[in-house]
């Protein structure tokens, strides 16, 4: 990734966090928490595993069905992307 694209990706992350914090997004509370946790746990390529989110303070106290429902909805909204190789539990954060 070029330097310009890397910085634009960081900027879009910052803007997206602001959108969530100000309540301007149309996401439910569990979706917001899972998405914030995903942003924090994702590596340089934006990838993360579901078990990382399950132990993250933002989503750790969430009931399992609520967590997986939020994960599925975020995937449907194309904010989180499932790994194309179908490796279990591997997701990536979509460029917002």
């Amino acid at each position: 990734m070029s330097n310009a694209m890397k910085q634009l990706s960081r900027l879009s992350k910052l803007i997206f966090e602001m959108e969530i914090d100000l309540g301007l997004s149309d996401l439910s509370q569990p979706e917001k928490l899972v998405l914030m946790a995903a942003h924090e746990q994702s590596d340089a390529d934006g990838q993360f595993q579901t078990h990382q989110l399950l132990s993250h303070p933002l989503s750790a106290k969430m009931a399992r069905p609520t967590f997986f429902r939020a994960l599925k909805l975020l995937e449907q909204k194309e904010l989180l992307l499932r790994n194309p190789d179908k490796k279990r539990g591997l997701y990536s954060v979509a460029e917002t």
Partner: protein
Amino acid sequence: MLRRLNLDWLTFVVVSVGYISAYTITSGLVMPLQKIFKPQLPVVFSLLFLPHGIRVLAVYFLGWRGILYLIPCSYLMWAISVYGSSIDLAILSPLASLSVVYVAVRMVKTFTESRSTDAFGFSWKECLAIAAIASVFNGIVLSILHGNSFNWILMIGYSSGDMAGQIVLLLLLIAFMKINRKLSKFI
């Protein structure tokens, strides 16, 4: 030379287009409206100065390189303002405005680095704190450069315009990204 300083053309183009667009909206839309609704205010400052937001974001994300990327477009727009719109601006004002943003970034980063646990390292709250500090410094420096002595009215005018510009720019970026996400679903 560019490689040695770790600068690249794409970043230069993105930063310049952002700055020139923000300046054009300010001088082409905000300033005429300000002249209509607040004709008593001096024409040297805008109540909503969007380019300050671009300056803060560029220096926040790119560090001192952000200043180098912004110098050409800052002086281009300064020249257009001075010779095109006959606004009396000091020649050092673009450089001073960029320098105060860098000082504000270093101040806030020094303050937050020791206590930050955020791996991401960038946050909109930190960005607004930088914008607020830089807008006060900018107001002080520009009011001195404009009249050779400190002027409270100019200082408050510059500072409030810069801060409003930063907030509105971030809100415009949120709106832009929401529209972009909605449109991308149809493509």
